[in-house]
């Protein structure tokens, strides 16, 4: 056996060549915008707001990464976010005679639990249908995409729900901790745990194995059905958490405005190098993939690009970034 068992450090593995080039793209973007408007781009303020505004999407994308690595897809996350926000806000209001604005931490805690449970319930439903029935995940989650939104509208009677406790929005929504917005901290913790679980634990290993070859995973005795249920459950629960975060940040459970969260999350995941065919991908990649469009959009507003040009410019940079990443990786593999 001549195999040399070279050790790769955790850092190296997390930040492998698969994510190196896309990280470079992100840095270049920041540098370019920074060079054009250093006074507006390279400021704590812009950094803070960009991070905050990306936090919710990031949490969605962490769950989505797991789902896509199993070679599944979850179109429902945006609707589940809406549903969880609505149930959470309505519960908090109900506990406080219809308006929770001045409610205390107890109410907030109940609201959090309701949001998580609401998200988890949809995730469980998705997972059971995907894992047990053989219905393609696209169809299952397209169904829950419509159903969760409809259910949210049904219970809120079609309107946004306000009355979010001030303690929630002032602390989680806009509060900071040594200059770091609390929302960003929460998203960072979720992302960090998500990355570690995926890269180092058995749960992560099974996620890759199922996406790589579901039949093989089944034959070696992995409980594929159960694992898939857990993965969709995770994605749903994180969507519930994201709904709660959105509540804290926007101070309202909004019914509209999350139609494209699913595509944005999927795009971030794929941009970060996770394969739609499953078996390969990483959370670090997802983080980069989520930030690239966010930085672009913000940068274009700051440097004042015409609104009609913005989507075109975003599209061009998006495609160019992946192109660059692909050709660098290929060159590296051919070497």
């Amino acid at each position, binding site marked *: 056996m*001549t195999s*040399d068992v070279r050790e*790769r450090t955790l850092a190296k593995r997390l930040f492998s060549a698969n994510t190196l080039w896309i990280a470079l793209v992100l840095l270049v973007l920041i540098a370019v915008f920074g060079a054009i408007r250093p006074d507006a781009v390279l400021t704590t303020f812009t950094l803070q707001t960009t991070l905050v505004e990306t936090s919710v999407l990031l949490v969605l994308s962490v769950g989505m990464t797991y789902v896509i690595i199993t070679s599944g897809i979850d179109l429902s996350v945006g609707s589940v976010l809406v549903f969880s926000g609505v149930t959470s806000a309505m519960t908090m209001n109900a506990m406080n005679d219809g308006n929770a604005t001045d409610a205390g931490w107890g109410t907030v805690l109940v609201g959090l639990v309701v949001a998580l449970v609401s998200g988890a319930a949809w995730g469980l439903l998705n997972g059971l249908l995907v894992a047990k029935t053989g219905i393609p995940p696209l169809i299952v989650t397209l169904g829950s995409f419509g159903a969760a939104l409809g259910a949210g509208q049904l219970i809120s009677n079609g309107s946004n729900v306000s009355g979010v406790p001030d303690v929630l929005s002032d602390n989680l929504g806009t509060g900071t901790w040594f200059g770091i917005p609390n929302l960003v901290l929460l998203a960072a913790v979720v992302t960090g745990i998500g990355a570690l679980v995926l890269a*180092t634990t058995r749960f992560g*290993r099974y996620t*890759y*194995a199922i996406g790589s*070859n579901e039949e093989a995973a089944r*034959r070696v005795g992995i409980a594929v059905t159960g694992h898939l249920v857990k993965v969709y459950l995770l994605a749903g629960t994180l969507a519930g958490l994201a709904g709660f975060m959105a509540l804290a940040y926007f101070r309202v459970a909004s019914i509209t405005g999350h139609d494209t969260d699913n595509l944005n999350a999927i795009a971030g995941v794929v941009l970060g190098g996770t394969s739609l065919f499953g078996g390969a991908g990483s959370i670090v990649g997802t983080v980069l993939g989520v930030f690239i469009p966010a930085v672009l959009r913000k940068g274009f507003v700051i440097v004042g690009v015409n609104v009609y040009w913005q989507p075109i410019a975003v599209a061009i940079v998006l495609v160019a970034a992946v192109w660059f990443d692909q050709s660098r990786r290929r060159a590296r593999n051919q070497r």
Partner: protein
Amino acid sequence: MAEPLLDARDLVKHYGSVEALRGASFTAYAGEVVSLIGDNGAGKSTLVKCLSGAEQPDSGTISFDGRTISLPTPTAARALGIETVYQDLAVAPDLDPAANLFLGRELRKPGVLGWLGVLDKKEMRRLATSSFGDLGVTLQSVDVPIGSLSGGQRQSVAVARSVVWASKLVFMDEPTAALGVVQRERVLDVIKRVRDQGMAVVLISHNMPEVLAVSDRVEVLRLGRRVARFRAADTTVEELVGAMTGALSQEDA
């Protein structure tokens, strides 16, 4: 002879309009190597899948260690100590060889980390390296996904996986098909060693000299049915080929 370890009777399996098994029977005893041979499409792989829980027969009975069992999943078979090298290998191409070797049986770090599910990748890699060494497998790098290995290297990983984990019976569906001369000898050695530990080994192979060299008994499948059984010591390549092609047939095999 003793009680059979595994005794399958009259298994039938359809795929749509294709009849892969038409009442196949099969017997294996502890401490023996029994070869299962037959023409392409005779139903050998299908039989193995039915006996290792990967597929469900439409009808028929299976008894193991004297008790009638059903094998709804591969996990059920593994729990009985049955491991399998599938002809299609059934590996996860994106994972590296060590990850594939330990798939479903991962080692965890000691202590609280392990309790949290954290894998002991270093230890798994170390053990994998030594298992591959036993089989004479040479890998330039253990870090690459198994999908990029050569055909023989991939097959060796699958063989290593089965013998590491089996405790009662190993099915090997053409384990040596892609192996080099040296690796093939090593695998045959391993098969004998496993048998000597008291396990049953079921070998599927189209290489008749190999079959005769390593087996104690031979069972022949033809068109989804068992058509003959031989003691390896009492038979010849010609007789085996005759049974496989239908030129020769035994009563109540």
